[in-house]
C-alpha cells in the first residue's frame, strides 16, 4: 500500500492528494479569494430562505398531517368503529370505544355500530399514515394541515367532534 500512496501523491489531478501543495495553494490567498467569489455570487442570487409565519411552505396533497373523519353524501359518519385503525397504529394514539347506534340517531350512521368515543392524541401520533391505510370504510384521512399549536397537552387530544368534518361527499381516493 505504501507504494500506492506515493503514486497517488504525485498525480496532481488526484483529488485525494493532500501532502504536496502547489505554491498557489501554499499561499492561502488564491483559495481564499476563490472561496470569497463563491460566497459573493451567492450573495446576489435569489434568496432561498422562507419567512415562515408570513410565508408558508406548500406541501403536496399526500402530506400526512392532521386527521379528518369523513362523512358520506348523506352527511352520515363513515366511521363504523371497527377499531382497525387503532390496531394498525404503532403509537397507540387512537382510542376508540364502539357501541350500538341508538334508534333515534340511526339516520346519522351508516351501520348499527359506531364509535361512541374516538380520541386521537395528536402528541402521540407519529403521522405515519398507517391508520388511513387500514381503514376499510374510507373514514379516516390525513390532511395537509401541519400547524399544531396549543397551550396545553389536553387541547391536543382531539375528540370525534373535532375530527369529523362538517359536510360529506363521495368516497375520497387519495392517490
Amino acid at each position, binding site marked *: 500500500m505504501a507504494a500506492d500512496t506515493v503514486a497517488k501523491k504525485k498525480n496532481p489531478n488526484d483529488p485525494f492528494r493532500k501532502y504536496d501543495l502547489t505554491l498557489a495553494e501554499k499561499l492561502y490567498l488564491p*483559495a481564499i479569494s476563490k*472561496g470569497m467569489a463563491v460566497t459573493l455570487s451567492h450573495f446576489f442570487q435569489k434568496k432561498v430562505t422562507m419567512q415562515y409565519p408570513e410565508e408558508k411552505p406548500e406541501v403536496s396533497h399526500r402530506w400526512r398531517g392532521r386527521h379528518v373523519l369523513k362523512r358520506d353524501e348523506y352527511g352520515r359518519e363513515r366511521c363504523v368503529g371497527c377499531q382497525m385503525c387503532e390496531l394498525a397504529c404503532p403509537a397507540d394514539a387512537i382510542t376508540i370505544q364502539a357501541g350500538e347506534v341508538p334508534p333515534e340517531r340511526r339516520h346519522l350512521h351508516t351501520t348499527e355500530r359506531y364509535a361512541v368515543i374516538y380520541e386521537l392524541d395528536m402528541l402521540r401520533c407519529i403521522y405515519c399514515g398507517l391508520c388511513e391505510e387500514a381503514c376499510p370504510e374510507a373514514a379516516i384521512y390525513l390532511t395537509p394541515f401541519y400547524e399544531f399549536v396549543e397551550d396545553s397537552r389536553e387541547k391536543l387530544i382531539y375528540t370525534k367532534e373535532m375530527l369529523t368534518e362538517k359536510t360529506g361527499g363521495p368516497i375520497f381516493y387519495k392517490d
Partner: protein
Amino acid sequence: MLKQVIDKEIADQQQLQEQELYDLNLGPSHPAMHGIFENRVKIDGERIIECESHIGYCHRSFEKLSEHYSYTQVNTITDRMNYVSSMANNIGWILAAEKLLGIEVPKKVQYVRVIMLEINRIIDHLICNGILGVDAGAYTGFLYFMEAREKVYTIFDKMVGARLTTNFGRVGGLDRPLYPEFADDVLNWVKVIPKVLKEFHTLLTRNRIFIERCRDITPISAERALDYGYTGPNLRAAGVEYDVRKADPFSSYEDFDFEIPTGTTGDVYDRYMVRMEEMEQSVKIIEQAAKNLPDGPHHADVPEIYLPEKKDVYSNMEAMIYHFKIIMHGIRPPKGEVYQAIEAPNGELGFYCVSDGGPNPYRLHFRSPCFYYYQSIEELLRGSLIADAVLCISSLNAIAGELER
C-alpha cells in the same frame, strides 16, 4: 462500600492533580457534539491523554419494541434510526422482511429503491461533510448544502407525504404509486448536485487551512479498521475497497455502473474526500436508474402480504377479505431467520430477523454501522487535540439515533 468508592475517587483526583491532568466531559449535550454522546477525556493542556466513551443517552429500545410490532409497523421505527437518511433504513428493513418472506419485487420497485437510497446517500454525505466544514471553521458551505437538501425534501413530500419520518415502502412494494413527474423531478434535482459539490470543493478541498486542519488527524490503518468492524465510507477511507453494493448486490445494484472511491490513510481528510467522491458516483447511479426506470406495477403480486388498492376494498369481496386479513391477522412469515445488509450512507446497515411464524418478529437486531465506529473513538482520540476530537467524531458521522437504536 460507599466509603471505599469515595476514597478511591479522592485518591484518583489527587493522582490527577499530581499529574496536572484535567478531567473534561465532552458531551453528553455539548454544542460541539453531534448527538448525545458522552466522552470523558483526561487532558493535559490541549492534548487528550485518555478518553472514555459512554453511550446510552439516546436509547429507545427499538429492538425490544419491534418484538411487539407488526412487520409493517417496524418500518416506522426504522425511520428514527439514522434520521438524516431515513429512507435508507426503511429500504433495509423492507428488503430484510422480503427476504424472509421470499418475495421478488418488480424491477420498477427495485429501481425506485435504488434511486431513493442513492438520494439518501447524497443528503447524508451533504450533512456530514457540511458539518465537518462547520467544525473546521467554515460555516458557509454547510448552508449551501442545506439548500440542496431542502429541495430533495419536496420530492419526499410529493412521494410519501413527509419530509423526515418517511415511512417509505411496504413489504412487497412501494407504499403507494409513484407520482407522475417523479423521474423528471429526480433528474432535475440530481442535475444541480455536481454544481453544488464543485462549489464546496472550491470552498474547502484545496484550501490549505482545511487541509492542514484535516490531514493526518485521527488516522486509522486498514487492519485496525477491519478489527473494529468498520464498514462504509470510513473503511474505504482507510483503503479497503469494500462496498455491499458491489460485494453482495441487492435491489438490482448489479445493473448500474459505478466505482468505489478509496483513500489511503483513513484520516479525516480521506473520509471527507471519499464522501465527496461517493456523491458523484451516486449522481451517476441515480441518472442511470431514473433514465431507465421501467414501467410496471408498484408492488409484487402478493395479495396476502401487500394491501389491496382502496378502490377494490370498497367494491370487491376478495380484496376486502385480504384487507381484513392483513390488518387483523398480520403478515406471518414462515419460521426462520434472515440477515439482510444494505450499503446505507453510513456503512453496512444490517437487519437480523428471527421469525417464529407469528405476526411480530421474534427477535430483531439492527447492525448499525455507527456502533462499530464509535468503539474506536477511545483509540482514535488518544493523543489528539480537543479541537481535533470534534472533527474526528463528525467525520466518522456517528449518529446517536442509529448508534443506540
